[in-house]
């Protein structure tokens, strides 16, 4: 998604001189094409994310559309109060790009993981929160949202090869994208872990337990009506996210189920505590925290079998 983001942003920037790109000294081997083509509209502000968001707020107030770029926790958490009191409070079009998310920076350790970015962003009123599932959807999502009036948080993955089968880059604000239908279970996913969820869904279908898989790329404003419609049709739903179990997609689904009084059992696949200091590759960490496709299949089968006949 990183290359797709830069490529798409360059195409948009060629058409609209308001677009700027600010980086917090990250983006080596990724942002250079933008820097080289639009030297006056790219600033490496240094390792200073709070200032980056504050400056972007001042730029946006004067008519620019600044994108600020860093690794997810440094983009979302370090300057969080600046985001809240700046572009959110003033309703200005600052775009916060959190690269990675989940365990994409696996061997770098907890400091580099994005495990609560979606949660802390989606509780803020007045911000749009978008987590595309693959690079095709990232491009569509950016083209569909870059011009919105208020702030946006984008959680983007690094992977520019993997695609979610059946998604075909579809994206529109406020909607869920269905990438496979089956009667046994509803699965909902967000962000780049969607490819694992899709692989799990395919394996379930191969075992004669086909389920329905939805991609929720916009978590705020949440597609609550559509979500409730899907949830009403299933006895159980399983959410899959590379995020803490609290605060993100699973919590959103729980809110919809509870507030609408739906009879749908919720199983949240997400990350528990990451406090043991053990790191490794992204796939190792997905396995460790129950997010690899095999674990998702097992959890889905367990959920389906637990339902009353």
């Amino acid at each position, binding site marked *: 998604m990183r290359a797709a983001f830069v490529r798409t942003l360059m195409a948009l920037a060629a058409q609209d001189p308001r677009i700027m790109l600010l980086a917090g000294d990250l983006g080596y081997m990724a942002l250079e094409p933008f820097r080289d083509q639009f030297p006056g509209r790219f600033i490496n502000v240094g390792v200073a994310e709070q200032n980056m968001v*504050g*400056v972007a707020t*001042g*730029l946006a107030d004067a*008519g620019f559309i600044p994108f600020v770029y860093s690794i997810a926790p440094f983009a979302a958490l370090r300057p969080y109060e*600046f985001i809240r*009191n700046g572009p959110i409070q*003033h309703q200005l079009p600052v775009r916060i790009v959190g690269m990675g998310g989940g365990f994409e920076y696996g061997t770098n350790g907890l400091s580099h993981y994005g495990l609560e970015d979606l949660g802390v962003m989606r509780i803020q009123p007045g911000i749009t929160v978008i987590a595309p599932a693959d690079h095709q959807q990232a491009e569509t999502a950016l083209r569909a949202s870059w011009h919105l009036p208020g702030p946006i948080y984008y959680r983007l993955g690094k992977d520019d090869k993997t695609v979610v089968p059946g998604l075909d880059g579809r994206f529109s604000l406020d909607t869920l994208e269905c990438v496979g239908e089956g009667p046994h279970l509803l699965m909902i996913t967000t962000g780049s872990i969607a490819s694992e969820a899709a692989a799990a869904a395919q394996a379930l279908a191969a075992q004669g337990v086909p389920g329905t898989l939805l991609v929720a790329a916009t978590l705020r404003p949440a597609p609550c009506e559509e979500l409730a419609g899907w949830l009403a049709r299933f006895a159980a739903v399983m959410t899959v996210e590379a995020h803490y179990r609290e605060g993100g997609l699973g919590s959103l689904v729980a809110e919809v189920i509870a507030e609408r009084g739906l009879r749908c059992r919720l199983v949240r696949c997400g990350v528990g505590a990451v406090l043991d200091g053990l790191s490794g590759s992204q796939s190792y960490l997905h396995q460790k925290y129950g997010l690899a496709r095999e674990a998702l299949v097992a959890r889905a089968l367990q959920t389906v079998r637990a339902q009353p006949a």
Partner: protein
Amino acid sequence: MTGQQIRRIVLEQAMRAHVGHIGSALSVADLLAVLYGRVLRAEHPADPERDRFVLSKGHAALALYAALQLRGWLSAEELNRYGGDHTLLGVHPEWQLPGVDFATGSLGQGVALAAGAALAARLQHSPRRAFALVSDGECNEGSLWETVMFAAHQKLANLIVLVDLNGQQAFGYTDEVLSLTPMAPRWQAFGWDVHEVDGHHEQALAETIATLDTRTGPPHVLLARTVFGKGVSYMESQIKWHYWPMSESEYAQALAEIGALS
């Protein structure tokens, strides 16, 4: 517009609303009188080519409201809603109030907003300037120094920061809480054009600002030596008056001391 006019409004409104932060507002009264009376270029509050101003020490908002009223951008009727219910005139400023460019209240953020405004002006080939008024206690915030580095590196000549150097913060004197002494060499070391000024001498302040090169060179900082609670003897340099509201007798004495009763 004079600092004493601002002080009078600050005292009247603080008394009426029974709200504190009086000492901080009195400290910056002369700085705001100079800015709003002589320095800030703006046809009207929504003029897109106006100079921008950020009251980064948002807790002095009452002095800002007084300046806005004296400039004719805020009616007396609106001002009388300060500190009430369903009002845009809270203890900290909101951007929805005409004349307020940015909402503030959390310290250490306003200079970054002003730096963005200054950078935008340069990119848009506009002569707009951006001003930010910070407190000395606010300079405890690391985020402020991120912007101090950034603005110098970007040579934001149209950025002017005023530091209200009253030597006090909410819970003590700055030299006892987290010393910033000496202040001038810190800013100089970061590459700023530093001016040490008397923050209560309106003419000297205006003249200093008029000499600044806001087209090329480094950003500017005015280290304005001020007295917390300036003009009211029992408030001057007293920590208590960061938060404390006045009694009736204290109010009468304050008005008398600033010459509002003569």
